[in-house]
């Protein structure tokens, strides 16, 4: 089958998607949203009962968890309306009121999208949640049925990227990536084209492609969102990568507890095979490639690429010292391309469009967009995707809805648990690799954790370090013992048992860990400690000198 034939087959099997006269309802929610399933059933039952012909489609989440289940109603000839927090009762009302009686129920609507405005319903393009985002990796999430490859093919030029890449030849594929400016989304931001080149030029066979689709930061649910909502965007990216470096074996690593994601991946692979997008002679070419799913236990260190390789080899998930880099000698000592799933979803987008299209987004050094998850003391804990260069403040305010309970911000930790803190006065920092690094932090998992003005810097640092201490794999001495010492010292300071020299020791340990640890988990682990000591030295001073916590009562919270 070539790509044209696949497109034709998809169109004939899922013709309703292209049919403007067909009424379509999308129930948008995470797989673990219990209400969504009953809403879905309710729609079907109600439509049946009322004799309305419509397609009801279950999709993955948008990432706007507190609005789910969201329902998109695509009525022929009308703009699409998004309804939020739909229940089985309101679903029945919608069928009656809007589908049958043409009352769009503005009271239940979040917004509309399409050519025509609908009275009393805002266009979503006017909502910051939508207009501040630039969804590239998340482009299809919430808009397609993740269990139906035809949706991916028909709604989003799916596998057109692979088809285009395979017509370009290996070198041009890597050049296209180079032109796009894509950088790895695993956290460190290494140029993707460099890694691909290294792997393509490495000798060894078979070569491997590993997609790190593990959510290791428990606050960031990026992998779950993409795998549940649009697995093919990742799988297509992996095949493009495999084609470019000459790999014939791919592994996608998923959290073992992501049952729905794994089920959807399974289904996706099965459907790819039917369309000759997997196995021998992909798209009728000489390119043959297999993809297998590997479930890995959730742990922070498993996100580290060398630890992940060990895990796939059946060994303990522990990092090892590079070089050799995995691109040269990785899984079973064969050349191995490891990219994060967000990277892969960007790759497929780049080839479905082109490098120029992609490079137009973002900043000079950081092209495209980044998936960000809001957490902590923020009103909306959403997962969104924003163009590089967007400020932290705008994300928190416009998308996150500001600090919960109307309080002020004390600090924001950016990049996941090993990211640095930013004080309230430095939140206009632009999120791109260079700015974040200059500010002493990392893009990391892209998590934005907000701490309100009631928080104590000592306590929040202690909490994150004691979590990180449990996540240290224990292999290298600076991470294992350094984090232990830090967590003990922070606990003592929090308990009013700290001494001034403890701060010197925290600094010494932190500086040593930054250069002394084997992997990036250990090297970034001191970030919260060093940044909180720098930004909130008065919190530490109050704990140490006055033996009390600045946030609990007597002392007014630090602004």
């Amino acid at each position: 089958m070539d790509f044209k034939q696949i497109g034709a087959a998809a169109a004939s099997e899922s013709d309703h998607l292209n049919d403007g006269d067909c009424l379509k309802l999308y129930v948008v929610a995470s797989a673990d949203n219990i209400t969504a399933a009953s809403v879905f059933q309710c729609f079907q039952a109600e439509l049946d009962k009322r004799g309305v012909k419509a397609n009801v489609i279950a999709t993955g989440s948008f990432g706007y968890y507190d609005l789910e289940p969201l329902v998109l109603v695509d009525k022929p000839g009308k703009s699409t309306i998004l309804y939020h927090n739909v229940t089985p009762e309101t679903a029945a009302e919608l069928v009656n009121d809007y589908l049958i009686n043409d009352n769009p129920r503005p009271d239940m609507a979040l917004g509309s999208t399409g050519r025509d405005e609908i009275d009393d319903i805002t266009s979503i393009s006017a909502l910051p949640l939508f207009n501040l985002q630039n969804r590239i990796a998340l482009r299809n999430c919430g808009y397609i049925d993740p269990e139906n490859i035809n949706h991916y093919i028909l709604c989003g030029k799916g596998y057109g990227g692979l088809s285009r890449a395979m017509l370009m030849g290996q070198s041009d594929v890597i050049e296209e990536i180079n032109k796009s400016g894509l950088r790895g989304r695993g956290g460190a931001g290494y140029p993707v084209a460099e890694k691909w080149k290294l792997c393509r030029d490495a000798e060894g066979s078979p070569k491997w492609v590993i997609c790190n689709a593990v959510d290791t930061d428990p606050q960031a649910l990026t992998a779950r969102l993409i795998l549940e909502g649009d697995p093919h965007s990742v799988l297509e990216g992996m095949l493009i990568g495999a084609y470019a470096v000459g790999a014939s074996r791919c592994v996608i690593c998923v959290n073992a507890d992501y049952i729905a994601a794994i089920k959807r991946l399974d289904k996706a692979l099965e459907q790819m095979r039917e369309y000759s997008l997997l196995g021998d002679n992909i798209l009728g070419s000489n390119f043959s490639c297999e993809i297998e799913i590997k479930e890995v236990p959730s742990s922070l260190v498993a996100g580290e690429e060398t630890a992940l390789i060990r895990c796939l080899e059946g060994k303990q998930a522990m990092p090892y010292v590079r070089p050799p880099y995995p691109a040269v000698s990785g899984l079973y000592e064969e050349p191995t391309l490891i990219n994060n799933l967000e990277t892969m979803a960007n790759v497929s987008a780049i080839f479905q469009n082109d490098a120029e299209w992609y490079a137009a987004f973002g900043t000079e050094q950081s092209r495209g967009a980044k998936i960000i998850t809001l957490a902590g003391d923020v009103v909306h804990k959403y997962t969104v995707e924003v163009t590089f260069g967007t400020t932290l403040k705008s994300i928190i305010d416009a998308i996150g809805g500001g600090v919960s309970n109307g309080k002020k911000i004390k600090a924001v930790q950016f990049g996941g648990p090993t990211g640095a803190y930013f004080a309230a006065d430095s939140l206009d920092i632009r999120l791109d690799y260079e700015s974040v690094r200059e500010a002493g932090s990392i893009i990391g998992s892209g998590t934005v954790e907000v701490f309100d003005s009631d928080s104590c810097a000592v306590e929040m640092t202690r909490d994150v370090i004691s979590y990180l201490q449990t996540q240290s794999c224990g292999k290298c001495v600076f991470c294992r013992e350094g984090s232990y010492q830090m967590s003990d010292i922070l606990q003592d300071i929090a308990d009013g048992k700290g001494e001034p020299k403890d701060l010197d020791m925290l600094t010494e340990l932190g500086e040593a860990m930054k250069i002394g640890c084997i992997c990036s988990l250990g090297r970034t682990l001191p970030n919260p400690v060093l940044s909180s000591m720098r930004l909130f030295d008065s919190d530490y001073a109050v704990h140490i000198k006055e033996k009390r916590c600045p946030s609990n009562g007597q002392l007014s919270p630090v602004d």
Partner: protein
Amino acid sequence: METVKLNIDGRDVETQEGKSVLEAALEAGIYIPYLCHHPDLSPNGACRLCIVEIEGVEGLPTSCTTPAADGMVVRTKTEKVEHMRRLAMELMLAGHPADCGSCNKYLNCELQSVKQYLGCEDLSVRRRSKLFPLNMGNPLFFHDPNKCIACGRCVRACHELRGVGVLFYKKRGKETYIGTADDQSLADSSCRFCGACAEVCPTGAIQDKEELVKGKKRKMALIPCRYTCPAEIDVPRYIRFIREKDYSAATAVVREKAPFPRVLGYVCDHPCEAVCRRGEINQPISIRELKRFAAEHDEARSWAGNSTKKPPTGKKVAVVGSGPAGLTGAYYLSNQGHAITVFEALPLAGGMMRYGIPQYRLPRDVLDGEIRDIENTGVEIKTGTRIESVDRLFAEGYDAVLVALGTHEGQKLSIPGADIDDILIGIDFLRDVNIGEKVAIGKRVVVLGGGNVAFDCARVARRLGAEQVHIACLECRDDMPAAGDEIDQGEEEGIAIHPSRTPTRILSDNGSITGVEFLDVESFSFDEDKNLEIEVRQNSQHVLEADTVIFAIGQRPEVPDGFGLDITAGRLIEVDTYTFDTSREGVFAAGDAVNGTSSLISAIASGRKGAVALDRFLEGSGNIDEKLAPQSEPEKCLGPGEGFATMNRHEVSCILPRERLESFCAVAGDMEEEAADYESKRCLQCDLRLKITPVKFWGNY
């Protein structure tokens, strides 16, 4: 292999391509401290002690993980490096017990050595106690996680070196430790008890159990089977060949130390099994049975082809006595190129192997075959020739003499009635039976003595038709000197054992024995002059009725008057313990005649030592060792050991007691190949541990 040139601390250093910077430095005598590196294991980069600065390389790379490259400029002792190194060491010591002096690894501990090198006595980091319980629950090893520095050597040894893979990094609360899956016991976790973990541990975290190693030499403690064997037969090696189904090579291994592999397979008292480390887990390996199996399946007889006889030296050697010591000495001396004549007083060669041990324990064709092998090397055996004096031998032109007379003179107790004519001496009784003479024996027999000879007498008596056979001995049941299987088989054959008895007189009626009177023994001991002192229970006289009484209470050498050698107070031939010299130049002595009645394997070992001494006297090298088996390197990767710990010892089946008593046929049945394979797989391969490269301490650089 390409040579790589680099500069370390201002010195130009050469090494081979593929070596790490650490290895290059250590080879050149430049010490870089390390703990997680081990010459036999993959680099880990975890302890961070071996960090260095390399020109053009960012940060402080670990020298163990950095390949040496041409033109590299390395500095190992910069201020930055030394600061980080000390901090790494302090962090490792933070949770490690501070008191080195109370640790049994004291002065033998790599951690302590590196700590001294770095001068980390006072810590700037916080000390803590890890509060792990000591794990004493496993056989062979004890684990003190508090001493662990998580260097991961044991984990790599377990996974990479041995392929067993039961040790893992684990976390409990905030602490990292090394443990098994679900913290199972080693036995339940498929451990093979190879000891590689304990061998590579740089601290006292995983150690051999103290009671197994304390006060013992390393080899004796770690490969006790081999080094407890008087002849130091390489037991693990021949068991390995059996596992590989190369029975000929296995037999050749035995033959490197003893020319009687098959005889030993039947009657060795196997001191190796008593110390076998597998016995700590469940039961020892059936080493003797495996040896017998191999020797009986040595169709290829590869040893014969590999054995080399040195060119004739022109020297003549007389060996007096053709027992195990004499024939062993003769065999090895013959291979050294000397012309050997063995003189035997009795009609056939073999000594106690023929005239002491009954046929049901050692079939005669087995013995004959191995004596023939010795004769085939050119040894001449003159039987029925009693040597009365060594002088005559020198007069006949012999250049040296090896005396191995054995102990053929049995003893009696001087108790009333001991001089009754019909009383039998155990060793004489056995000799007569073995020669085939008719020996009159009553229906009721009492054997006095608790050793193997006593049991041989008792069991022979049963086979000759005695209905009630009693054994009475001084020792309590647990201390009886006879081998366990002898006692068990004797009891199966209906022999009644009466331990802790001392006979006070032999009862008779008109010159015919009617019984033996005994007292119960509370305890006994020997005084300074080796005189026996017995404490008896008052009023415990009792009688065992008997028609025949056999004394089996020990033997002495039968040295002819005027033989020409000094005799000890215990009437043994006097020799220098180290040189095996007797009082006469050119005369050496070995075996029971020197040591007193002992085991077959001791006699063989003694014969070898006598041969070494005699060869040196004749200006030979004294090196009688032969390489008869292939010198193959053993496979060091063992693979997972699921169910390994619970594999029970295979016991060889014996024919039914009822059938045994009908003849002198062999009691022990043959081992099946499947059983031999199974039993050989039970071996812990303790010898592999000594193949692990020892780590040099910094003082040695």
